[in-house]
């Protein structure tokens, strides 16, 4: 029995390839470039923050694959990811200017609210909870990019 359990644990961690058994995040095309461009390595090679940013990258650029629970878009759709509309820097600027009253809506809107609406509206899908990694990790990606750009609260883009 012990051998069976040990065997399962070894298989799960080393050989299964099942995502829930792995501590690392799948590396999608473009991640290494993104990591170098935005100096994500400042936070280390690995670790929770970097893994969350990497997951954020996957969510933003491969939304249909990594947030399939919250989008009806599929691989065949033209606009099937956050990156179809937003760059990572857009997200960073949006993050530092969030939590303010949106005059059109007449209420205060957080970055997380915007992300959730994107899932529901632009992605023709469903609303994740505010705690869901599908929301959190996009915020962390925005934060990491904002750090690289040395943005402060309310930073404006040139021309704003």
């Amino acid at each position, binding site marked *: 029995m012990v051998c069976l359990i040990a065997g399962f644990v070894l298989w799960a961690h080393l050989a299964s390839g099942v995502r829930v058994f792995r501590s690392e995040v799948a590396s999608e095309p473009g991640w290494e470039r993104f990591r170098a461009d935005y100096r994500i390595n400042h936070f280390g090679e690995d*670790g*929770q*923050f970097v893994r*969350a940013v990497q997951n954020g990258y996957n969510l933003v650029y491969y939304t249909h694959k990594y947030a399939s629970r919250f989008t009806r878009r599929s691989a065949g759709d033209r606009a099937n990811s956050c990156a179809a509309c937003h760059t990572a820097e857009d997200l960073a600027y949006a993050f*530092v*200017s969030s*939590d*303010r*009253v949106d*005059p059109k809506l007449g209420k*205060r809107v*957080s970055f997380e609210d915007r992300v959730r609406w994107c899932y529901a509206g632009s992605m023709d899908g469903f609303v994740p909870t*505010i*705690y869901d990694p599908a929301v*959190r990790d996009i*915020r*962390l990606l925005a*934060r*990491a990019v*904002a*750090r690289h750009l*040395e*943005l*402060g*609260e*309310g*930073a*404006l883009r040139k021309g*704003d």
Partner: protein
Amino acid sequence: MPTPAGKLTRIVLLLLVLGGIYLLATQKHMQREEDRQTTVALTPACAAKLGRYGLAHGEHYQSPYALQRTGASITVRGYSEEDVRAIQRGCNIVDDTQGHLARDAGRERWNTTRFIRGTHANCNHCHQGIGDKQDADGNRLKGSLNLGASWVMADMYDRFTGLLLPFELRQMQCYINSSNGYKPNIADDVIRDVTAYSRFLSAALELKMGSHYDEQGIDEIAASATPKQGDDYVRGEALYRQKCQNCHGRQAFGLEANGRVVAPALAGPNSWNMQSRNYFYYVSTILPGFICRNMPLGEENTLSNQECRDIAYYISNLPRPAGDRQGPLVALQQQILMTVMPPLMRLTESAGKHEVPAERVPARVQ
């Protein structure tokens, strides 16, 4: 067997109850929306702080503080009138969490006391200078738990919880542990307004996202930063008597005057609980760091590392509420201790058996 008329009555009753709840919720929602639009009466300290930082509604914001200190200031996105009110309420909450200075604590503090058990807890006790402590020259102070600096460093890995801790969750921990209270909802105005204020602070101080500043958090003091004498209860008690007792009271139950807290409780029912990071047996480096950098008021940085650790050790051995992870038995034990110990200590002190021998009062170390 219920008759059709009985069934119908039940359905009507159920619909009435549900409709009543819906109407009540709608009315509360509208009331809250109305409150958000109402002018905020600032506490004197908040009026001074926000006035100094030039908070006003407008398309753009430039920090007078940065301009004065560096001769230049970045133009950032401004604030709407509602944003300004949220920042003002956030400042009020930090400065006067219990709403003693409020005309209408429901509107100006969102009844923050709903989430606090004791009568002493106030954000400004730890996050001094309304979360932005500075010296007379306007220098921000190391280890002073600056809220703006905490905001720009939020979401980082927190080694005490093992989480990538968002700013809002950190506030919840303050309510649960430091205030020995209850968890507000993440979207509650209580949380969002303090976040809005903290974000404004980071704009006023021109702090950059993801950068660590000295004033962020605590300047922790580990045992390795002392001459390794070990933390001593008796030395701690003697130092407490010398340095802290005048304000915090003989049994560290704090000091109140005219219904207001002059010095908060460090022990007893109004104090932080055993799950707080201030509790020495949970994290042994935080409270000493806080004491060294922020206490005694007006004489900060005058105590040595060992003295701070001794005082923290002594304080943490005094009775206080159990945290939410300790379970009912520990909670009961702490309640009994909080009830029994104060009169016992008074008794032993009055019998003259509680004097600390002069030779145990420490010479200055380190």
